[in-house]
């Protein structure tokens, strides 16, 4: 088991490297650089040269990549001083430095992620809790009462939840609960850095919850509908398996059959999607964060492309990759517990 985990973690390295190199090259292929223009105005070449020199964008691409991975000082060492480390230069991904932002001129990518990722993580965890908390029980009930009114209602609500996008639910919530009824504040997030352990809000009072409810629900309902449909389908399939018939014919109590034998197995597909879902949700959802004016990480995925902020785009992409491969590893480990036939030795 431990060997398996170590092997998998070592396997992350080539994945991360491949993602890094692809992203690094692809963002530079988009026409237009980060410093070509101020507003509508094309900057004089001498000024572009000054700025590019500051951020080492004048170096050959492969040198830039080495610098991104290993740091400017390593590049200086490797090239015998041909490319020099300057003040504010990158210490390299390998030492946890994601470099300076090219658009937010006085901030580093590390600062930006430190400020926005915890907020996306808080929102994501709440939304997932809602998604799972409603989705799994709803799916189970729908499956157990298949073709009853309960099933039809649950399925109808689930289809509705999947089909209404958060960009519709969000403004409707704001209009109803904030402006018409005045129960909740319109927007913004009720927690700001510093966070406990880097991501837990210091104040979990009404200020936090009143602002968290609408975005979490807007994001969570879609998830719950998705999870409910998946749980229902999977459980229905498992209930038709031979071993369930065997369990029943042994005279086991129906509850034992469902909970011990059917449910555990039926959750494998749900857990499978939970890995990528987790990685996607906690790294920020652009639309919900925009609608509710939340300073999450979602906007950096979108805006760093428009701003040609190579460094932010690299940083958030790599963080997403890391979370994705990590979550998938956990998912695989969970399989062994859900289905005793799966072994990792």
């Amino acid at each position, binding site marked *: 088991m431990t060997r398996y985990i170590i092997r998998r973690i070592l396997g992350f390295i080539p994945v991360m490297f491949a993602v890094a190199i692809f992203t690094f090259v692809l963002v530079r292929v988009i026409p237009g650089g980060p410093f070509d223009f101020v507003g509508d105005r094309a900057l004089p070449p001498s000024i572009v040269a000054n700025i590019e020199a500051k951020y080492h964008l004048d170096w050959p691409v492969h040198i830039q990549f080495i610098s991104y991975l290993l740091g400017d000082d390593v590049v200086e060492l490797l090239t015998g001083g041909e490319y020099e480390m300057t003040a504010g230069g990158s210490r390299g991904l390998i030492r946890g430095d994601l470099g300076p932002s090219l658009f937010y001129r006085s901030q580093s990518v590390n600062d930006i992620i430190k400020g926005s990722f915890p907020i996306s993580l808080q929102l994501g965890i709440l939304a997932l809790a809602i998604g799972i908390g409603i989705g799994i029980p709803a799916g189970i009930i729908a499956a157990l009462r298949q073709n009853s009114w309960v099933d039809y209602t649950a399925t109808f609500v689930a289809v509705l939840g999947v089909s209404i996008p958060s960009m519709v639910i969000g403004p409707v919530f704001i209009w109803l609960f904030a*402006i018409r009824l005045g129960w909740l504040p319109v927007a913004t997030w009720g927690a700001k850095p510093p966070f406990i352990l880097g991501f837990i809000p210091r104040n979990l009072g009404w200020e936090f919850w009143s602002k968290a409810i609408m975005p979490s629900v807007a994001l969570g309902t879609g998830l719950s509908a998705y999870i409910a449909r998946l749980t229902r389908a999977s459980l229905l399939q498992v209930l038709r398996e031979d071993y369930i018939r065997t369990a029943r014919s042994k005279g086991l109590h129906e509850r034992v059959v469902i909970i011990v034998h059917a449910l555990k197995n039926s959750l494998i597909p749900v857990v499978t999607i939970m890995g990528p879902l987790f990685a996607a949700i906690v790294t920020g959802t652009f639309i919900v964060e925009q609608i509710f004016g939340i300073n999450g990480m979602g906007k950096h995925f979108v805006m760093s492309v428009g701003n040609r902020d190579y460094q932010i785009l690299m940083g958030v992409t790599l963080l997403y990759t890391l979370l994705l491969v990590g979550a998938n590893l956990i998912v695989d480990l969970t399989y062994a517990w859900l289905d005793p036939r799966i072994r990792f030795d």
Partner: protein
Amino acid sequence: MKAKRMTILLGLLVMAGMVLSACGQEVVTVTVIEGGEVIVVTATPTVYDPVTLNLNLGTEPPTVDPALSTDTTSVDLVANLFMGLTRFDPVTGAVIPWLAETWEVSDDGTIYTFHLRTDIPWVQYNTGTGEVDLVTVDGATRYVNAYDVEYGTKRTIDPVTASDYSYVLYIIKNAQAVNSGEEGFTLDDIGVTALDATTVQFELESPAGFFPAIAGMWIANPTPEWVITAAGENWIEPGTMATNGPLVMTEWVHGSEMTLIVNPHWPGAGDIQIERYELLMIQEASTAFALYENNELDSTGVPLPEMDRVKADPVLSAEYVNYADVCTYYYGFTNNKPPMDDVRVRKAFSMSVDKVSLVENVLKGGQIPAGHFAPPGIFGTPAIGSVGLDYDPTAAAALLQEYLDEMGITIEDFNAMDVTLMHNTSEGHAMIAAAIQQMWLENLGVEVRVENQEWGVYLTTIQNDTPLADMPHVWRLGWCADYPDENNWVHEVFNADAGANRLRRGCVDEVCAEVVTSRFDDLTAQAGVEADPATRIELYFEAEQILSEIEAAYIPIYFYAGNSVAKPWLTRDFPLLGGNNFFEWEIDWDAKTAATR
């Protein structure tokens, strides 16, 4: 019993889905903290309730470093935190004293000498005590002096600073040489010198009547050398930065919110009525508008979809303000690409655009139809309506027919040339393009193809060294004032030799590596160095006239307008030349508290 086990099982599954190498344990911690309130930090209730402004900046300011600011949000904040030598009168737009009390210019117009106030101290916010501290040197208050201005200006020009906007200072002697790293030039060669603590002198490359406006720009602000040397790039954080303006920054949660307070040591502090400024960074205009409706913001912009409702609603319409914005929206022709290389075609396209109808039916935001380039408020701009081609579809069709006859082609042949109109991707630009495309079809029978590209790609496409085959025939752009002088408009944008010349006027070769100048180019170059204001106005009038009427090198479409709402308890202005001087606003605090509590 069994139900409980099921709950536990479900609970575990929930955890399993969320557990992750990095935060698995931390999820558990959330619950622990929810249970015990040990770590909850409650804000101490303040007895005193400061007069507070709530406003949305709309975006995280990329910086508030005067040398590096380029966007309006950053520049607005710099203007409230730092003082420049001069500023613009909010109403008339004239250059008025600010940090400098007086200034004079040498007879040949190349040397400007500014005399500074002596009572502006450097201050620093103390994050520990929550007080604004005076910066002291050897126990004495450190006042802003001419050396700070010299340092700030030179720092912007220093190539190491890598300032985007440093080119605006190229009018200063040797600034361009130093900034482009020419051999043999050092920072000492730049034509800015502090003669003594209160006098700073600028030597210019050539006479420039608009220099007092440039001297007041953020890029020439005095900056605190000792702080920047010690803190480096991050010197603009509250607690670290030293500032000298009317307001002081106390908190900056990047990407989320910023708080400013009055600088109590600023000489005019007694006249500043609002004590606290809470600024949000919400990008979504409709969300900001909802906050406004819920009394959580005191003023905000009106999103286009809300326009009709705001105008119809009895409350909102009373709070609605329409104001001019110093920007121009225009369609450029690629003047050396057939058929746009013929003036009759350009005139036909220009005269068949019904700008009045466009503004009233498509834009609906109180924009002013434009006949020339520089909007009102810019020095040297012609009066509205005095320059420009009028909407005349009949004459336009006749001009196009004349061209067709001379070339011996039909309108079908013309349409086969596949005339393309390009804009950057945006719903607003697409609506305008569709309307104008329709006007050209109806008035001229011309079928124009509309294309759009993402902003960065688009700007690269319409550079004037793009191969002609890849250039659209017509393209849209906007221009806003850096400083309020025609030099910044017709000269810097359109001059074939010295300007950006995306219109590709006077190009000898396809990609404008070489250009020949004409009357227009000579006029704008001459007006830039002319000292007499009246003569400058005449020169610019003729230049504007040539470009839009005689050459019809582009189509000026409209001058921008802003659309905002402001609560009745807020007294704010919309300066002629843009910007937001928060410190000059006022709030009827009783009315605001009555409405919001």
